[in-house]
C-alpha cells in the first residue's frame, strides 16, 4: 500500500478508536461507579445497558444548542474546540505498537506538554466568554490549577527522560526492555499520576467544576453538543493520561508474547482508566487552598528531588 495512504489510515483509525473509547467510558464509568457503590447503574437500554451511550449521544445531539445573548459568541464557540483539538493532537505522538503510531516525533514528550498547556485555554476562555460569575470563578480556579500542576507534571516526566536519554516516546518504550520505569521512577510515577488527575480535573481535583459550589463551573452556560465536547474531552483526557502512564512507566506495548502488542497496550491503559474511575468513587474533594499548598509544598519539592537523584544515579552508574 502507498505509504501516504497507510499513514492517513493510521491517523483516522487512531482518531476513531480513541473517540469511541472516550464515548464508551461514559457508560463504563457509570456502571463501574454503580458496582463500587453497590448499585445497579444504567442497565435498561439494550443488553447490560450498553446502548445507554447511544441514547445519551442522540439526546445530546438533539438538544437545543443555545448561546447566551450576553456571551462573547466567537470565543464561546472556540473554547470547546480547543479542548478536543489539544487532546486529540497529543494522541499523535503515542506509540500504540511499534508500527501503529501517527508520528515518530523526536520531541514527543514536549509536544504532549505543549498541548496540555494549550488545553488550559479552553477552560479560561469558556469561563470568560460565558460572562457569568460562576463560570468565571470556575475558570479562575481551573486555570490556576492547571498552570501549577503542569509544572510538576513536566518535572516528574524529566526523570524518565534522563533515564531514557530521549524525548521520543518510541525511544522511551524501547529503553524499558530490561525494567519498566515505574520501579526506578516510582516517585515520578506517583507525582505524574496525581498531576494527571489534576490536569483532567477529575475528582478528587474537580474543583473548577465543583457542582455543589459553582453550578457546573466553567461550562455552566454550555448546552447541546458544545457541552458534549467538554464532557467527551474529559474522558479523552483520562484516556490520554492513562495511555501516557502506560507508555512512560509501564513499558508501553511490551508484554509476554501470547498477546499482540496493541492488546497489551489497551489492557494496561484500561487498568489505569479504571483506577481513575475508582478514585472518583472513593475520594472526597479537597479545599482549594489544600489543593494548591499540596501541589506547591509537597509535589514540587518531591519531583525536584526525584530529578536530582535520578540525574546523580544516571551519572554515577554510566
Amino acid at each position, binding site marked *: 500500500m502507498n505509504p501516504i495512504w497507510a499513514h492517513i489510515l493510521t491517523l483516522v483509525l487512531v482518531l476513531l478508536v480513541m473517540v469511541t473509547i472516550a464515548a464508551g467510558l461514559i457508560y463504563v464509568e457509570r456502571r463501574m461507579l454503580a458496582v463500587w457503590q453497590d448499585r445497579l447503574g444504567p442497565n435498561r437500554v439494550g443488553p447490560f445497558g450498553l446502548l445507554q451511550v447511544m441514547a445519551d449521544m442522540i439526546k445530546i445531539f438533539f438538544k437545543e444548542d443555545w448561546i447566551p445573548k450576553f456571551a*462573547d459568541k*466567537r*470565543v464561546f464557540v*472556540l473554547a470547546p474546540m480547543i479542548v478536543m483539538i489539544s487532546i486529540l493532537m497529543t494522541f499523535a505522538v503515542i506509540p500504540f505498537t511499534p508500527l501503529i503510531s501517527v508520528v515518530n*516525533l*523526536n*520531541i514527543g514528550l*514536549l*509536544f504532549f*506538554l*505543549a498541548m496540555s*498547556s*494549550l488545553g*488550559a*485555554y479552553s477552560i*479560561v*476562555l469558556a*469561563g*470568560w466568554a460565558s460572562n457569568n460569575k460562576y463560570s*468565571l470563578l470556575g*475558570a*479562575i480556579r481551573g*486555570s490556576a490549577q492547571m*498552570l501549577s500542576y*503542569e509544572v510538576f507534571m*513536566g518535572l516528574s516526566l524529566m526523570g524518565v527522560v534522563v533515564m531514557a*536519554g530521549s*524525548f521520543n516516546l518510541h525511544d522511551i518504550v524501547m529503553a524499558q526492555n530490561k525494567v519498566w520505569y515505574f520501579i526506578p521512577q516510582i516517585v515520578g510515577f506517583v507525582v505524574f499520576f496525581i498531576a494527571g488527575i489534576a490536569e483532567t480535573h477529575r475528582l478528587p481535583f474537580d474543583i473548577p467544576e465543583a457542582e455543589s459550589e459553582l453550578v457546573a463551573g466553567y461550562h455552566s452556560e454550555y448546552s447541546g453538543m458544545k457541552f458534549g465536547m467538554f464532557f467527551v474531552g474529559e474522558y479523552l483526557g483520562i484516556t490520554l493520561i492513562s495511555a501516557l502512564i502506560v507508555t512512560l512507566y509501564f513499558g508501553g506495548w511490551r508484554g509476554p508474547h501470547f498477546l499482540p502488542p496493541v492488546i497489551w497496550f489497551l489492557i494496561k491503559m484500561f487498568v489505569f482508566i479504571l483506577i481513575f474511575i475508582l478514585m472518583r468513587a472513593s475520594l472526597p474533594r479537597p479545599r482549594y487552598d489544600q489543593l494548591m499548598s499540596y501541589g506547591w509544598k509537597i509535589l514540587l519539592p518531591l519531583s525536584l528531588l526525584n530529578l536530582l537523584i535520578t540525574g546523580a544515579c544516571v551519572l554515577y552508574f554510566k
Partner: protein
Amino acid sequence: MNVIFYIASIIAILATIMVITGRNAIHSLLFLIVSLLAIGVVFFTLGAPFMAALEVIIYAGAIMVLFVFVIMMLNLGKAYEKMEESWFSYKAWLGPGILCIILLGELIYVFTVTKGSGRQLTVISPQEVGMTLFGPYILGVELAAMLLMTGIIGAYHIGRRKQKEYHRLLQKEEEPA
C-alpha cells in the same frame, strides 16, 4: 518544508497585525497566541524542534494564560472598546505606518539584492541545546536563574500575608472598659 515555512510566517504576520488593530483585548490576545504558535512552526521548519516546543510551552502555554487571566480579572466592557476605537484614529497610526512601510521596502530590497549564502539546514537536537546552554553559555543560564530567583523572592515579599491587625472596633472591645 519551504511551503510550510512561508504559510506559517504569513499567518504569524497577519495574526500580529490583528493583535495591533484589534479592539477587544481578549480577541487581540487570542491572535497573539496564534502568532506565537505560528512562530513555533517556523522554528520547527528551520530545524529547531526543541525551540519550537519551548515556544509553545512557555510563551503560548504559560505566559499568555497569565495575560488572559489578568485581562479576565479586569473585566473590560463595551465602554473600553469604544475608548480603544477613539484612540485608534488615522492620525495616530498613519505617520508611523508610512515610516514602517518605507523600512519594509528597504528590507525587501536588501534581501533581494544580497544573495543568501544558501540555507544549510541542520536539525538541532534537544541534547545539543542543553550541551550549549550548560557549556559555553553557563554564565547566561546562571544569571537568568538568579534573576528568576530575585523575582520569586520579590513576589513572595509583596504577596506575603500582612501581620494580623485587628479592626479598630474589635480593638476597643478587647480593651478593658
